């Protein structure tokens, strides 16, 4: 069996197109992460900083603010900002915000209505007399979101209870620190979706390539051609895809950690958006996002193998992959069908954006049982992966009959 696995891997790695795609993919993973860092800018005391210097300086400034976002600090900090704005004859001034933008955006997001984009102007409109009730406002916003009227159907009582319990269970007050490093890491993981193309390209010829090389007949007449050889193809394809995506993710994480350190790994994800109803740290969220990417990779691999097993042309397989994994992101949501909206929430590109998944409060109710978007994604993706793998297993033999 080891020999079969070795030769199946050799077939994948020997193809020139695969070698080029893998090299470009890894290069892209490096470039995306380095460019994110290089793209950061910060102006402090009239001096413009760039890249690592800008990130580290902002970390320094933000870390110096406080350790914890208690109501007292939040109120006094905002009051001071509003005082500065009021004393400034030209009004809004971004230089007041820039070096502490992570904290200011947290205020702005928390006090913007759930269905509106945040605006820095919001900061001036928050009443500070008697405290700003930051955490009450968070729960109020979540309740408004859950009680709103939706043309495609409202949340049931069971759903509301499910989400409110989750959101209320998040510990407050939030610890504070700079989240810059982990923002870059998290964004970098989101960009892994482009690597799905590389996986599709490398896996598409696993079965279809046998027909293209005219080796299928030979393979099927050997002792293990109808069982172990197919198993080896499936196993090596899954292992290859998962390891490749994990490698790209770890390369990105590694670059950021090496250049910026690990600071902020234990900060709560609510520092990104107070709507998030899960009590995760930044590192946990990044690992979870990488897990989601690997889940999508499993389905992509299984789907590709299934098409490859019944097709004679790897190009057709790759085209179908692109349609399913990228094309479905353009499916429009419905104004009347909640079911349709829930289905399109499960398409790969939507699922790969974990930050969006976490704040949209999408769920799948079955009577009193409520399954979260993440839970349903896991169930559906695993189920489809198994089905597609079985179809690939049978398809290669049956279509040759």
């Amino acid at each position: 069996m080891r020999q079969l696995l070795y030769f199946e891997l050799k077939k994948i790695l020997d193809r020139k197109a695969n070698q080029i795609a893998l090299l470009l993919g890894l290069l892209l993973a490096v470039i995306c992460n380095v460019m994110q860092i290089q793209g950061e800018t910060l102006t402090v005391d009239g001096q413009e900083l760039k890249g690592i210097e800008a990130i580290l300086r902002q970390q320094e400034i933000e870390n110096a603010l406080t350790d914890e976002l208690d109501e007292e600090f939040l109120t006094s900090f905002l009051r001071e900002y509003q005082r500065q704005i009021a004393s400034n004859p030209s009004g809004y001034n971004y230089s007041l915000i820039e070096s502490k933008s992570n904290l200011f955006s947290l205020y702005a997001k928390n006090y913007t209505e759930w269905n509106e984009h945040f605006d820095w102007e919001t900061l001036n409109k928050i009443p500070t007399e008697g405290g700003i009730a930051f955490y009450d406002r968070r729960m109020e916003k979540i309740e408004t979101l859950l009680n709103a009227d939706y043309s495609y159907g409202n949340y049931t009582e069971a759903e509301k209870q499910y989400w409110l319990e989750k959101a209320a269970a998040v510990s407050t007050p939030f610890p504070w620190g700079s989240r810059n490093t982990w923002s870059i890491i998290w964004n970098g993981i989101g960009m892994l979706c482009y690597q799905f193309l590389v996986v599709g390209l490398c896996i598409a010829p696993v079965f279809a390539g046998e027909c293209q090389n005219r080796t299928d007949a030979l393979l099927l007449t050997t002792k293990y051609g109808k069982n172990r050889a197919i198993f080896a193809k499936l196993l090596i394809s899954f292992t290859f895809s998962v390891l490749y995506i994990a490698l790209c993710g770890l390369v990105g994480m590694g670059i950021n950690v090496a250049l910026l350190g690990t600071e902020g790994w234990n900060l709560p994800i609510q520092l990104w958006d107070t709507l998030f109803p899960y009590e995760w740290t930044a590192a946990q969220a990044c690992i979870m996002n990488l897990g989601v990417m690997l889940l999508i990779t499993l389905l992509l691999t299984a789907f590709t193998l299934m098409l490859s097993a019944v097709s004679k042309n790897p190009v057709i397989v790759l085209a179908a992959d692109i349609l399913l994994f990228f094309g479905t992101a353009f499916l429009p949501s419905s104004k009347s069908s909640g079911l349709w909206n829930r289905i399109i929430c499960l398409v790969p590109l939507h699922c790969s954006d974990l930050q969006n998944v976490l704040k949209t409060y999408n769920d799948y109710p079955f009577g009193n049982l409520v399954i979260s978007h993440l839970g349903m994604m896991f169930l559906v993706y695993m189920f489809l992966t198994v089905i597609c793998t079985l179809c690939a297993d049978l398809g290669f033999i049956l279509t040759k009959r």
Partner: protein
Amino acid sequence: MELILDRVSKQYQSKIAVDRVSLKLQKGVYGLLGANGAGKTTLMRMICGILQPTGGTIAFDGLDSSCEDYRSILGYLPQDFGYYPDFTGMDFLLYMAALKGLPRSCAKRKAAQLLELVDLRDKARTKIRTYSGGMKQRLGIAQALLNEPKLLVLDEPTAGLDPKERVRFRNLIAEIGRDNIVLLSTHILSDIEHIADTVLMMKSGQLIYQGKRENGQEDLEAFYMEQFEEEI
């Protein structure tokens, strides 16, 4: 040692490619003749278990053609021999040996022997994409012999071989046929004349003739033309 085909048929929608062929093959070399589209390749692919017959059964010493044990005694060279262009000749044979269930140490020894036999030892570490047509065909023959098959099925095995290689190949097949069943199809009548003990002829999916070569068909070409007179 016996390969039994019992009323084997293959039908594709309205077309019958092989029509109730019954055969009993024992040790020896069998030459399968027939015009293009007569059903030779379909029959061979069914004997090799690639295609599922729509009717009838194929068994070797009681082993059904769909089972793993049947495939372990089988050697096959397809008409359109496929290969992995980025593999070397040695890689290809080692891969085929793994598929045929040969232990690794045995596979290396056997692969080296066969590369020597088909005169490809010097090209063992060269990528197959650089091989000539004749070299690829010889590699195909080598892979078919890896597991010392009791049933060897060769579809157009001499295509692409030069006259010297063809003579070597005929001798090799004749030797294998002494202890095993060899079924070969070819358009080259001289191959059949020199190697085959028994001639099988197919026409429109049916087996129209089965007989020993020495049974009165000294001039096989004339006999062949006679059988296919209407078509020609």
